[in-house]
């Protein structure tokens, strides 16, 4: 251990600590900035329903983040429900059904899609998807399933909670596909060969593989949920930005990230609005941490059973 080595080791250690330090910095700063609003309104900030800023003074304004939090959860849930099965179907299609060359092609396409900037999805979503859904899916759902409370309101615009959920599902599917592919690749090659050797059809092969990766699907779903919950610009362009609870998904709504994107630039003009938005950020952090923790617990339980 020379002196050069010691210095080098110190540099590397500092870098490692700094990496976690960055995370801690973001979390602490968000907490610090959110504190004024949290101490002013307490839990009411998270459970309140109104977004009522007022330049006149604090006693005239009140903020409640529940519509935004509920919107984030709703949009991410819709995305998860649509994306996880899609990713599974695509992964099984590539793994067990498609001939190898075609499978590699589809895999490459999905890898490319996974790396696309999300603003591109947002542009397409607001210019193409929203008008399309306004003409087709939304009236269709309202017509056929209008008795279900979720679809009971009449769709007036293409920018709705459902649209945002569908767009997010599209955005998150390639990433989830990669996760499922990785899970499938962790199945020992010998097991796969044994399935073929025993005379499995492609259907039976696929079903067996799907059953084997069930815990990974759960963990992957949680990661995808966390991803979808944090997405900002694409959602902001299609969710409609109406400060209401997402009781009916045919109507515009709001998410925490879209709220921040829209309100943050002007928020310093209103007392405590900026702090409220930081509190929303805190909720996003908590959601992400919860999803990751749950995912890790599932993975640990899975490796224990193995």
């Amino acid at each position, binding site marked *: 251990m020379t002196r050069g080595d010691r210095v*080098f*080791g110190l540099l590397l250690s500092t870098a490692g600590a700094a990496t976690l330090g960055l995370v801690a910095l973001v979390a602490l700063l968000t907490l610090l900035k959110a504190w004024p609003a949290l101490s002013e309104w307490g839990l009411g900030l998270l459970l309140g329903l109104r977004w009522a800023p007022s330049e006149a003074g604090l006693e005239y304004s009140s903020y409640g983040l529940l519509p935004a939090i509920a919107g984030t959860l709703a949009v991410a849930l819709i995305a998860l429900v649509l994306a996880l099965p899609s990713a599974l179907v695509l992964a099984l299609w590539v793994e067990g059904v498609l001939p190898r060359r075609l499978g590699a092609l*589809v895999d490459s396409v999905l890898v490319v899609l996974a790396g696309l900037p999300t603003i591109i999805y947002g542009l397409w979503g607001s210019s193409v998807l929203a008008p399309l859904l306004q003409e087709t899916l939304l009236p269709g759902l309202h017509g056929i399933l209008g008795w279900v409370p979720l679809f009971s309101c009449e769709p007036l615009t293409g920018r709705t909670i459902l649209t945002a959920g569908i767009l997010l599902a599209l955005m998150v599917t390639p990433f989830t596909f990669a996760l499922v592919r990785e899970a499938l690749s962790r199945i020992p090659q010998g097991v796969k060969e044994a399935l073929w050797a025993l005379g499995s059809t492609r259907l039976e092969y696929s079903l067996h593989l799907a059953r084997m990766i069930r815990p990974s699907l759960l963990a992957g779903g949680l990661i995808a949920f966390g991803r979808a919950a*944090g997405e900002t610009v694409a959602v902001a362009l299609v969710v409609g930005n109406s400060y209401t609870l997402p009781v009916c998904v045919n109507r515009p709504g709001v998410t925490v990230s879209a709220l921040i994107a829209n309100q943050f630039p002007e928020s310093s003009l209103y007392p405590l609005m900026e702090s409220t938005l930081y509190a929303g950020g805190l909720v996003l*952090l908590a959601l992400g941490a919860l999803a990751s923790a749950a995912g890790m617990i599932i993975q640990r339980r899975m490796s224990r059973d193995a």
Partner: protein
Amino acid sequence: MRRWGTSYRRAADILFTLLISMVGLILLAPHIHLLATIAVRGLRVILEEGSIFFTGTPPPPGSGGLGGIAPAIVGSLMLGISTAALSLPLALATALLLVERPRSPLASVARAGVVSLLEMPTVLVGMMAYALVVVPLGSHSMLAGALALSVVMTPYVVVYAERALREVPREYREAGAALGLEWWRVTLGVVLRVGERGVLAGIVMGLAKALGETAPLLFTLGAQRSQVPTSLMGPGDAIPLMIYHFAATPYDNWRDLAWGGALLLLVLVLGLHLLSRRMAGGG
């Protein structure tokens, strides 16, 4: 030829194959439509304006002309360079820590940090950069944007660089030690050199990610699009930010510029991905 057993199983298999292929194609269709739409609409805009698209500035809203997005293009280039400069020291050092001392407690700390950074909502990073840079300096700046983007870029570089460095065979390290080289000389002079290509490929991937991000720029950059940015300390523009702002407007000419910018961004990101794959595969 293998016997498939009862014809029921065979029929189910054929039905399954047809069904899953149909569903697979249907699932891919929106994505293909997205890529095609960007290509068609973007190309139309760029061809219509020609080189002015790359050298001009945006026109007044709603007017007939198209203009260009030069401030956004130059801004993205400037951001790319400064983001890389800011993030590389930390990212490479962290990657080296994870490769050289993988079982140390600090490595676990670093790993947790990297994973958390990967999942962090980027809008929060933007809010942090706003609070730490924009507010104290009193103005929006490219520097604030670059700092925010570097936080997003770092974990990607760490992941790819660590993977590349891990593949360097230990024989190289042992040879270095056998020649009497100190640990840091072996790491920097041998391991890093041998794994250079993979590390560079990782840097390119991190850059591709950073250049496509919008949320970190929302509150930091200041969306100055009347002129090309000249300094890091002043406000500026970037392609994703321009797309976001113009996409939300009702003005056709601005929306057209957004499509053109989207195609440019798509080509840029895809190009970087291809470059990275070339670097990693060829070496």
